[in-house]
């Protein structure tokens, strides 16, 4: 197994060599046509990227040369310099030097000295003539004699990986089917082959998933700049600490949560953390601490945004929720702080500037919630007044395979993603009470509403469910407690089947408009099994509760 360091170095090399090749190409273009705008822009961009990558990897000299060249191309682009005369020479020397340095990195050798080059570049930037010694004038045909190099890495479109993943998903479904059939037919040779197929496709699936994994750092490393900018705009002092950049996660998941994370971080700086004066007045260190960390928990990846700011003003949120008619004063009084914080993620809730000012939280936090819902993720909030707030995104490592609990209603299987399940209960009618037409039980000293899944799924129309009674309740009730946005809901099912990893296929048209289902999966028996979408079930229940 390669170390992360090696892996990063290889990635750096692959990108750097590609940049270098493009630079040479664009330079030749520029030599033919000194006013070629696109080539100039490209060179500027390539230098910028190379600079950023080199600095992130700690190759300071390489970064410096790229930085100087970037500045120079910027000047040429702005027509303050022209691509002519001695400038051309220095630029070519500079790009050659970049190539040498990149190769030195690849060969693990010390980087060549570039002091003279940097001085010359500096002179050009200042508008002076470079000092060229003879060595520079003699153009060696080094470039022509050098071996051509092909990178050890291939770039691949994510789309191709998506396709591969879908195919593997199909394969796994058929594999499960073959496994079941082999067990039914009970032929030893067939069974052995099926088991072998099982192992191989498992490996294949793992490999494809692995190929899609990237370090969370890919995203986190973009944040120092964001934090600096927001902090500067808000005139706050913020120290950003990051950890867990190595934690691996599916690239598409990272893509989907990019905006959500950006939102949380901006929010934390502009609303969560106090100004320097406020901090000093409340006896805190002047510099606010913001922590971005990634860690793994079982099969999930957690990404945390933690600030040591003012925390959520729970009472202000409670009042706002009542004002906006999301709950009644009576009901709100009974809600604990987690249930109150859940209101922050209601669509539009936080748009009210007032709440933002009072509680310091919540501009468009529903965006965060939506992103997580689409992934089947969870959001956890911890906050203490005056001490700070932590938002934790709970994400699946991979989108392909999800752990699910299979339940049965009317002899049909339904799958509920484990990410949203909390516990299963077998309740005697005595443990269930009826409150305001809703079945309720107590779990961990919290009232949890119960609803028969059958009713939620099959009752037609938009009118509220009929008031619940306990009259037709016989024997223990099988209850699956699901949790969404800190709201618990107990689904009464006929029985629990088993826990299983499932491959979720999206519902095809025209059925994809029904949001109650996150998709469909095929069981080993060939049976079609609908995957329930817990957020949608929760919404349906809230809309239809008597």
């Amino acid at each position, binding site marked *: 197994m390669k170390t992360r360091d090696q892996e990063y170095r290889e990635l750096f090399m692959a990108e750097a060599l590609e940049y270098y090749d493009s630079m040479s190409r664009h330079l030749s273009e520029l030599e033919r046509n000194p006013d070629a705008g696109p080539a100039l822009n490209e060179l500027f961009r390539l230098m910028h990227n190379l600079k950023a990558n080199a600095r992130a990897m700690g190759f300071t000299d390489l970064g410096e040369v790229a930085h100087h060249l970037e500045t120079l191309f910027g000047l040429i682009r702005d027509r303050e310099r022209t691509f002519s005369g001695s400038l051309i020479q220095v630029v070519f020397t500079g790009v050659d030097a970049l190539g040498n340095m990149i190769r030195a990195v690849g060969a693990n050798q010390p980087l060549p000295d570039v002091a003279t080059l940097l001085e010359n570049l500096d002179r050009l930037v200042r508008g002076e003539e470079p000092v060229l010694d003879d060595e520079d004038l003699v153009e060696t045909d080094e470039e022509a004699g050098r071996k051509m190099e092909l990178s050890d890495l291939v770039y691949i479109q994510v789309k191709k990986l998506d396709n591969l993943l879908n195919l593997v998903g199909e394969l796994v479904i058929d594999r499960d089917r073959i496994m079941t059939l082999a067990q039914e037919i009970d032929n030893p040779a067939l069974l052995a082959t099926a088991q072998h197929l099982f192992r191989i496709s498992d490996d294949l699936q793992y490999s494809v998933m692995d190929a899609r994994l990237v370090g969370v750092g890919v995203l986190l490393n973009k944040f120092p700049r964001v934090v600096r900018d927001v902090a500067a705009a808000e005139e706050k002092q913020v120290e950003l600490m990051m950890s867990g950049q190595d934690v691996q996660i599916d690239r598409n998941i990272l893509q989907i949560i990019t905006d959500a994370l950006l939102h949380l971080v901006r929010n934390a700086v502009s609303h969560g953390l106090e100004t320097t004066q406020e901090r000093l007045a409340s006896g805190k260190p002047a510099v606010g601490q913001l922590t971005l960390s990634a860690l793994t928990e079982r099969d999930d990846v957690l990404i945390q945004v933690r600030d040591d700011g003012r925390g959520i003003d729970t009472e202000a949120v409670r009042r706002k929720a009542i004002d906006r008619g999301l709950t009644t004063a009576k009901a709100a009084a009974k809600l604990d702080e987690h249930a109150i914080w859940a209101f922050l993620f209601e669509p539009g809730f936080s748009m009210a500037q007032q709440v933002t000012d009072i509680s310091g939280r919540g501009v468009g936090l529903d965006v965060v919630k939506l992103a997580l819902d689409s992934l089947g993720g969870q959001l956890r909030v911890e906050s203490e007044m005056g001490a700070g707030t932590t938002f934790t995104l709970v994400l699946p490592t991979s989108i392909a395979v999800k752990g699910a609990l299979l339940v049965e209603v009317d002899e049909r299987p339904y799958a509920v993603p484990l990410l949203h399940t909390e516990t299963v209960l077998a309740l005697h009618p005595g443990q269930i009470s009826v409150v305001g037409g809703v079945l309720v039980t107590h779990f961990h000293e919290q009232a949890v509403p119960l609803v028969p899944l059958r009713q939620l799924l099959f009752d037609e129309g938009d009118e509220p469910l009929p008031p619940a009674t306990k009259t037709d309740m016989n024997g223990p009730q099988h209850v699956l407690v699901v949790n969404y946005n800190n709201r618990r809901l107990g689904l009464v099912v006929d029985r629990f089947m088993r826990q299983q990893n499932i491959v979720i296929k999206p519902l095809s048209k025209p059925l994809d408009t029904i949001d109650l289902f996150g998709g469909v999966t095929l069981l080993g028996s060939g049976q*079609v099994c609908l995957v329930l979408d817990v957020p949608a079930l929760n919404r349906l229940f809230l809309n239809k509760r008597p």
Partner: protein
Amino acid sequence: MAEIEIASPAPKAERAKPAELVQLIVFRLGDEDYGIRIEQVKEVTVTPEVARMPKTPPFIKGIANLRGDIIAIIDLEERFRLRPAGRPLPERSYTVAVEAADYTLGLMVREVPRPFTLPLSQIEPPPEFVQDSSTRDKYLEGIAKLPEGGIIIVLDMRKLLTPSEVMRLPGKVASS
């Protein structure tokens, strides 16, 4: 029913040129014969196990696994209100998988569908007066009159299978 072959007497004898032929897949709904152009049909199969799909109109029987594709199964007798009283769909029914623009749907029918070839000229556009008179007639391509009597109602699947058509919930969206 005997298949009508190319040799069947053309309405006009002087036409020497071979007439343009149309191949249909013909099935029975209620007491009438319906046809779909064969290009619109993906396959015909015994109806696989259908999982009921909550929150869909009653004519959507559910979803089924057709060679790894999950498709919606539709009961056209129910859709067009053609179901004869006291004649529920038999245990063993057949499914005609038809292709819409970007998805596949299964039509559930009670008898084995059969292929049928006839000259295009035998398909007449639907008479004016039935247009828009009931849901079914909006999806007609035409009506084929058979020489030995009887008709086949030719459906245009592309009009039938738009998502809004399929998902139209009775009572929710007033049918235009």
